[in-house]
């Protein structure tokens, strides 16, 4: 069983490595996924929550989108019905982004209450299904 023991040792190393990598991966790169109301609750209970990387999933407030093409700045507000946050994003929004779509905003909430987005994902119904007409 000598070879078997050696194999078990190697296996333990591999399993340990997988576990370690996953644990640190989650710890260091995992992000909260919140709705605007969850975010406002978090902020209310934990004032240090500003400037923490997170994702916020919400609807774009219709009519709130302003684009400055020249500076590539996109401003809009997101809401889940009860809480609303303004978002500023520098960069190119995805094709599917418009003012009636569900978005996932990746970024940090600033002390002035604005979410500075590093990425905006528009959740279109799917690549397969077209978005139902509103």
């Amino acid at each position, binding site marked *: 069983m000598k070879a078997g023991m050696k194999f078990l040792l190697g296996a333990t190393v*591999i399993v340990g490595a997988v576990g370690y990598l996953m644990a640190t*991966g989650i710890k260091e790169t995992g992000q*909260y996924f*919140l709705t605007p109301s969850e975010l406002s609750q978090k902020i209310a209970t934990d004032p240090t929550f500003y400037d923490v990387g997170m994702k916020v*999933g919400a609807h774009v407030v219709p009519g709130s989108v302003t684009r400055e093409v*020249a500076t*590539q700045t996109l401003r809009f507000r997101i809401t889940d019905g009860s809480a609303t946050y303004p978002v500023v994003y520098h960069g190119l929004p995805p094709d599917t982004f418009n003012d009636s779509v569900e978005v996932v905003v990746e970024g940090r909430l600033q002390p002035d209450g604005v979410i500075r987005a590093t990425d905006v994902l528009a*959740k279109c119904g799917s690549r*397969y299904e*077209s978005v139902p007409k509103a």
Partner: protein
Amino acid sequence: MTLLGGLALWVACLLGVWGALTGLLGAARGRADLIASSRHAVFALCGTLLVAVLALQVALFRHDFNVEYVAAYSSRNMPTFYTWSALYAGQKGSLLFWAAVLSVFAAIAQVVTAPRHRIYLPYVGAVTSIVATFFVVVMLFGGANPFERLPYTPLDGRGLNPQLQNPGMVFHPPMLYLGYISITIPFAFAMAALLSRRLDVDWLVAIRKWTLLSWLFLSVGICLGMWWAYVELGWGGYWAWDPVENASFLPWLTMTAFLHSVMVQEKRGMLKKWNLLLIIGSWLLSIFGTFLTRSGVISSVHSFTQSNIGYFFLGFLVISATLSFWLYSRRLPELTAESTLESIVSREASFLFNNLLLVGIAFSVLLGTLFPILSELVTGTKVTMGPPAFNRVNIPLGLALLLLTGIGPLIAWRRSSLPNLRRQFAVPVTSGVLALLILLVAGMRDPSPIVAIGLGAFVSATVVQEFVRGVAARHRQYSEGWWLAFGRLIARNRRRYGGYIVHLGIVILFIAFAGMAFKTETEATLRPGESATLKSPYGWTYTFTHLGVSQYDALNRQVTAATVDVTRDGRRVGRLTTEKRQHVDSRGQPTFQPSTEVGIRSDLREDLYIVLAGVVNGTEQAVYRFTINPLVWWVWYGGLIVALGGLIVMWPGGGAPAVRRAQAGYAVKLVAKDAG
């Protein structure tokens, strides 16, 4: 036609139930009449579902917009080519496609299975019938009947999502589906082996080609998906660890593990329990993938719209997992290994480690994909894992796997001697170290790409060494010419040398992935005549000069096209055009959101990737994103080589004598069994 189609679904449902019952009963009681009836039911099910597919296809081509599905996924001005793919573009159609293809595979399995494996067929027919029936039931009772009619008839259909109107998208979903679906056949054989208690290597031999087939379909499907994402979505990459992507990657990983570990069972009679687990696991993962893409439980950029058929899938998943693992645990005592691991420096040990790594990767991807749900269950807050988290875990594991890809084929079964190791490893290790040194001297410092390329050189050298030795041996022994020897070497040992070719493709893929670590990117808003510059990772400076914007109407879209002139270090490279497309229906009304057509110029070293983000209203001022992606071409070519290697392994006939010689020990066992 919809009446026919709907009727076909009901008949299919009944046939499926009949086939399952007669198959199980007939095999258990040994009743030849029931077994024959079950076999006929499998064929009839196949025919019926094909009729249903035909009915839907006819409705699509006739533009029968009274049918909800036809109105939702096709339109009058849609190119014919894409009308074909509308069959599986939507939820309901894809379910029908799934069931129909499964029934075809099931019928083929009944026909092509070798006589000495026929004993499994009644059970196989029963299991495939159950799975196909499940899909028909979802269509009939889950509100997903593709033949449902609307209370009114729209003048035109909504058409296919423009992002799907791409050749890659016509072949990518069916390839993946074929991969997912064909895993059902090995799973059915595994269940048959468990049910019939014939758990020797026989059933493995019966499913070998099937597992390869589904692995091949999955590989090609995943590659096509990457290609489609790259050329169509315009975000500049091909893999984002999206849940839907992960869903297709999971069964691929476990199937890859199986294709390796099955050799250990064939040669040494070990890993019987493990192999069964891998097959059951792969199939469950394929159903899980189908569930994930349909239920909307995980927020993905591209899942099907939320619907309650997710519950059907979840239920089916839970029931199948429970039943198959229960059956498995009942048979565990009959699955003892015939030999033990003799040395850690042996082929079988390297396969064991390879399996651990593959399953470890699969496990981490599964956990990462489900992490939002799990973290919400445990802590009440969703925590998501993004690409950085996946890369952090999977890059080191992937590199370790790459190392094993080189080591495994070089060490002997059972145990390896030191001189033997020296003979095998001298050249490959030297090549790997040389490559590492060259990269370090050239000034590269990023650890993962350097290691990836160094290991790539090592693995490639092992493959080349194997080929050179094989060809040289044939040349000496049979005095064949070099090319003839090369051809015959592959033809006579397809499994081995086809496998090496797959390894070579994987190496190319790894190096191509490593190249993406060096991508460069810039965004610019340009007036005609203005230009932007971007430094490529090779040190060249590219200049992009905006030429202007043109707008025109095409068959089913309004196009806004912007063109740039590209120079590299002052020398002209060419012109690139990128478009924004607004698709319209046959009355000129806009449908869907605008989509981007990326401008791409590929060569062996790098891709120029140009996206038009928008045009400042009323002017010719355009917003661009310029990206330079190194080595992307090699992803597609690596994928092709993997597919080619897979095809060589799968190719029917030939190779028999060599294989038989190599497996003499086990062949003797089979003969003994047949005689007994």
